[in-house]
């Protein structure tokens, strides 16, 4: 019965599985979806599902998906009234939100100021601290190697040197000693400048025994702000997530409450609108947590939250952008069961996770009542060397964690992919491992325990064989 006067047509400024996901949400919300596609993506699944396609340039992202002017002009040419940026690419770029506003387009995301404060990790830490959220031992932006050394001495090694404009696991260096810091500071700053156009660095204590736990937020223009519970994303390699689950059952209920409260406090401080995620590092030795960063966009792993809450996060984003109220209040949100997501990447695990582009020759995803596969791939699809390696997200829901692990393993077994190498077998190894089943892992477990054991196993196999 709500009149959708504000949004009728949405430009999907992204590609891959998230573009498909957004097109689907648009259809469910009775909105037309126009997909912005590079030359490499003209025949993509998202393009085929969309009402129309606008071509925004060559395959290389810097000439297409990363060009604000191409996106905005594409939206205007196709008579869109809103732009959904997805994740990655321009999703956390305040200048896209600004250019949308300047041209009468609704940006599906928080306001420009929130994006800017969230994107500057030093500023985000300051906002979090002011909101009473623990930020842990660390610093604001440091002036140089000497200042960093003084701070690191106070915290104790190892430390992380992080780019103020980084985030999402990029722009981080682990430093183990003062000598190491002296040597690597200038390089890290130079790399941050090259990658993000901002060479500022800050220092954080490196927590050896930690879990990565995050809280999903949704806010609207009418003062509505809810959290949809937490996700545990501790199975990582080089700060990149491989397996995610909801809820974060490894933590005590009391700690999980505190995380949710902290996330909501930060959301209030930022006057948060749309979907966002507050990431925390949980120190397993100190039974405490610190704020890591806030991501002002929909996250790759959002489906696990959808599976246990029944709330469609992308549809809520569209509702909020249109000026409507969230469809849920905090009291409506309840967590039922457990969900696990495996990110199936086209990578060669044996080859040191080298990306494996090529043509998918066979593609049979598993199906079933509690199985969801978010993907843009199909048999005959060519995995392009231009983009990241994610080809599918396998999301499985169960009554509880053991049940979900068993169902996920079964689904992984039935997922037939040929033509490119994938991380599927690695995820099978993660889910089969006793440490994972017993919640006895941390953010370093995959790299320090699982991967070395797999290399040994392979070596033994080849000796025997």
């Amino acid at each position, binding site marked *: 019965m709500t009149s959708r006067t504000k949004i009728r047509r949405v430009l999907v400024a992204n590609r891959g599985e998230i573009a498909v996901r957004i097109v689907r949400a648009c259809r469910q919300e009775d909105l037309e979806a*126009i997909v912005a596609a590079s030359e490499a993506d003209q025949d993509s699944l998202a393009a085929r599902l969309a009402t*129309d*396609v*606008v*071509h*925004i*340039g*060559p395959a*290389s992202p810097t*000439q297409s998906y990363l060009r604000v*002017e*191409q996106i*905005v*002009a*594409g939206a*205007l*040419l*196709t*008579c869109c009234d809103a732009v959904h940026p997805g994740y990655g690419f321009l999703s956390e770029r305040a200048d896209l939100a600004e*250019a949308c506003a*300047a*041209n009468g387009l609704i940006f599906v995301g928080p306001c420009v100021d929130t994006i800017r404060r969230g994107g500057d990790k030093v500023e985000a830490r300051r906002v979090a601290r002011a909101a009473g959220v623990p930020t842990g031992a660390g610093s604001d932006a440091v002036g140089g190697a000497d200042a960093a050394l003084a701070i690191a001495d106070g915290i104790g090694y190892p430390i992380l040197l992080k780019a103020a404009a980084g985030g999402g696991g990029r722009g981080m260096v682990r430093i183990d000693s003062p000598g190491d810091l002296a040597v690597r500071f200038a390089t890290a700053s130079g790399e941050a400048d*090259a990658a993000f156009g901002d060479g500022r660095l800050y220092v954080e204590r490196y927590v050896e025994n930690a879990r990565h736990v995050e809280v999903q937020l949704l806010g609207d223009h009418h003062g509505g702000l809810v959290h949809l519970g937490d996700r545990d994303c501790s199975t990582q390699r080089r700060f990149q997530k491989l397996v995610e689950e909801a809820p974060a059952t490894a933590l005590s209920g009391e700690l999980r409450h505190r995380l949710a409260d902290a996330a909501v406090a930060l959301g209030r401080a930022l006057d948060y609108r749309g979907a966002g995620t507050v990431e925390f590092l949980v120190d397993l030795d100190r039974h405490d947590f610190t704020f890591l960063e806030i991501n002002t966009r929909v996250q790759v792993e959002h489906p696990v939250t959808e599976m246990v809450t029944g709330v469609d996060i992308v549809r809520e984003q569209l509702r909020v952008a249109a000026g409507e109220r969230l469809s849920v209040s905090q009291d409506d949100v309840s967590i039922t069961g457990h969900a696990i997501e495996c990110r199936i990447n*086209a990578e060669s695990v044996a080859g040191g996770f*080298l*990306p494996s*582009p*090529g043509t998918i020759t066979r593609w049979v995803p598993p199906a079933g009542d509690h199985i969801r596969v978010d993907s843009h791939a199909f048999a005959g699809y060519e995995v392009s*060397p*231009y*983009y*990241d*390696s994610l080809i599918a997200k396998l999301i499985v829901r169960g009554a509880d964690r053991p049940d979900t692990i068993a169902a996920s393993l079964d689904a992984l077994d039935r997922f037939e992919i040929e033509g490119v190498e994938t991380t599927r077998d690695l995820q099978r190894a993660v889910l089969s491992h006793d440490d994972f089943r017993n919640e006895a892992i941390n953010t370093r477990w995959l790299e320090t325990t699982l991967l070395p054991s797999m290399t040994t196993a392979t070596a033994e196999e080849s000796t025997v064989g």
Partner: protein
Amino acid sequence: MSSAEEAIKRVVEAFERSDWSEIDIRSGDLRVHLSTVAAQSPPTAVPIAAGRPEPDDAAAPEPDPPATPSAAPPPTGAHVVVAPSPGILWRSPEPGLPPFADVGQTVDASATMCIIEVMKLMNHVKAGVSGEVVAVYGENGVVVHNGQALFAIAPSSS
């Protein structure tokens, strides 16, 4: 005005009040190419006939390849540097900078010859031997396949 004309007008107006230097977008039988740079071809904002092949002259120019790749086969005894994986060949550290290596240049075994970008991963390809670069096979920005010859190096006699 037709809706197509209105859409084009909106794009042109947005371009005029922005600091954008160029846009080039296409949807259905509409294509809009606007540029502040004095181009060889005048900026266009015209409907193109559906199904007709795209005129290529208006495409954004690729950065010039640092040097003209040679087509000749590697000289006998030369060490051939090959692509370690499929990906995009970058011959300079970033656009506008001189290439890592060019014909006639002497390189160390540990020298970076080029970058192969594959799914956001930047792989620095090393020379492997010390010597003089005698041939360059790939153009900047092209997609290369696994094992494709990229450079030939005449090893220095030591």
